[in-house]
């Protein structure tokens, strides 16, 4: 898997490089925004590790170009800015993840492995939610060991949520997943599909967070 590291501190860049090389990743280093733009044009990367504070500007300004690529790489922001407002800004700009310096190397590795898994769907792990098993690689869901049959649209929704179980998924986000099916994907239809999914998977496995969105819930023992 090929990774672009955008980082202007050469000492840190070297350290990250040798760490990731030892873990069998191919890493290119760009020390400025300009270099990064050039690299993105010529090479197809799986992930971009992006420092925000660069000599020639804000790392986030690279994101529009990244998103415009045909197969956009995953962007993980690596920064010393630890304020929650910075994080929100970064995620709003389209970054996929956010790690704060000094980050745990193992954590960086875990995020990159997750990217790897998402890219090669065949090796997707089975997500275990209590007695519920979601196998994204084979489009299979089991509840208490028994297979659950889902329609295509229900699968589309579940796939979005199960791929990033650590995220709260906004209504817009989920509606986008339904949009591909050509139907009118307004918020009412979304609610209909969510409630169907709940009926099939168990009420407590999809949590509604009013004002934020929906997420898969691990705790089957619901205390509400």
């Amino acid at each position, binding site marked *: 898997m090929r990774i672009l590291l955008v980082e202007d501190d050469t000492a840190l860049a070297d350290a990250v490089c040798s760490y990731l090389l030892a873990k069998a990743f191919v890493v290119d280093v760009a020390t400025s925004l300009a270099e990064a733009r050039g690299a993105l044009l010529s090479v197809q990367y799986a992930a971009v590790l992006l420092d925000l504070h660069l000599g020639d500007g804000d790392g986030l300004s690279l994101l529009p170009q990244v998103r415009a690529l045909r197969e956009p790489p995953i962007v993980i922001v690596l920064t010393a800015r630890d304020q929650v407002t910075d994080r929100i800004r970064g995620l709003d700009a389209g970054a996929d*993840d956010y790690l704060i310096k000094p980050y745990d190397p193992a954590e960086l590795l875990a995020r990159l492995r997750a990217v790897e898994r998402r890219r090669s769907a065949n090796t997707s792990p089975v997500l275990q939610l209590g007695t519920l098993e979601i196998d994204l690689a084979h489009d299979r869901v089991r509840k208490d060991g028994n297979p659950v049959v889902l329609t295509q649209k229900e699968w589309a929704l579940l796939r979005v949520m199960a791929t990033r179980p650590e995220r709260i998924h906004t209504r817009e986000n989920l509606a986008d997943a339904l949009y591909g099916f050509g139907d009118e994907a307004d918020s009412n239809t979304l609610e209909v599909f969510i409630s169907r999914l709940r009926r099939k998977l168990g009420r407590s496995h999809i949590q509604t967070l009013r*004002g934020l969105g929906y997420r898969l819930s691990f705790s089957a023992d619901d205390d509400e």
Partner: protein
Amino acid sequence: MSDAKPRNGQDSLAGRLTRTLIVWVGGVWLLCVLAVVWYVDREINHNFDSELVEVSHRMFDMAVQELEKLRVQHESGTLDTPLIAPKQLFSEDAVMYQVVDIHEHVLLRSAEAPVGAFDVPLAAGFSNSQSWRVYTVRHPSLGLYFQVADPLDERRTALNRTLFGLIIPLGAVLPLLALVLRNVARAELRVLQQLAGEIEKRSGADLRPITLPGLPQELRSVGDHVNRLLERLSQSLDVERALAANAAHELRTPLAAARLRLQTALDHDLHRNDVQGALDALQVLSHRTEKLLQLSRAESGASLARARVDLVQLAGTVAQEFWQDPLINERLKLKVPDSAAPVAFGDVDALAIALRNLVENALRYGSNGRVVIEVAAPCTLVVRDFGAGVSAAQLETLQQRHVRHGSDRAGYGLGLSIVGTIVEKHGAKLELASPPAGAAQGFEARIVLRPA
């Protein structure tokens, strides 16, 4: 610092006050004098004029009779020079008049009147010449005119006398007034100097509040503000000292451990355990650095924003940070209200730090059990775990600063004091309970914020 204190300098407050007051008092006084002069001038003219009118009424007939009489006596000669009327017995003052015919020949004049005719047109009423104010009356039947005159000099002298009478005392009194004003201003401003002196005495070692009895209202508020500033300064100095002491202590230990481990590793040809140990020590160091950074950020209340904070969004963002770890994802649950949307007034970054610390504590001490972040109406953030909790006595000491929670030796215990500081800066309340209401065991922290 002390040399920048102009006591008698050009620019003293008393001096400025005196100068300004004198200029204004003098100016207003001068205006008043001018108004009085104008009024007096008017009155004098009016009085003199009415006297002229009175004299003309009284003396015209007498003068005509006198003229007849004198004409009879001087029958023989021609009238080249005007006749001079004898002085009246009852007239106490000199009266200047002339009786003139229609061709402006002076027929009769009083002794004091000039020989020539007054240089004014022959029309009834008042008119002015170069040096005379003349009142003219026409005889109804004889074709004669009677002209009474006043020298204008006389009026000017009267006016000048009044003017001098008013301006000379002004000139004399103004310096005196300046002296008095300056002394009064100095006396009243002495209290300001005392205040300045008190403020000057304050230093890093002496931050006692300023107590000066009998301060006027304006200065009392200055004193109060200075006292509040001193209080904040003293607080932040305390924190700085505590932080310095803490930082040294908290950071040296893991640093020493890491160095020892690495040195040992080198000596033993990079033994795996030693390198791992060094890595662990550095991990602790990173964590403590971050905590100290958070603490100092929380303490520097000056940089706190005051904006609307959507608590649901805040809790969602913080929860998602923790959910990155699949193990934590299974343990940590977020609950938000179904109908209300709590919005507080404060600094979203600081509140996120507080919430993050509470969650970290709960995950650490919650005996690997469930942890709940709850956003409650009207405006409360709750973090609850169901671990062993703490005893009543421990709960008591927990809110004191820099007391460590639990028996961990890793030194993570700065967390709750960070939370306490942030809560305090927001004017909010931190409520701790162990066990939480309705639970058998556990620990609950509530940040009760004021709704926006």
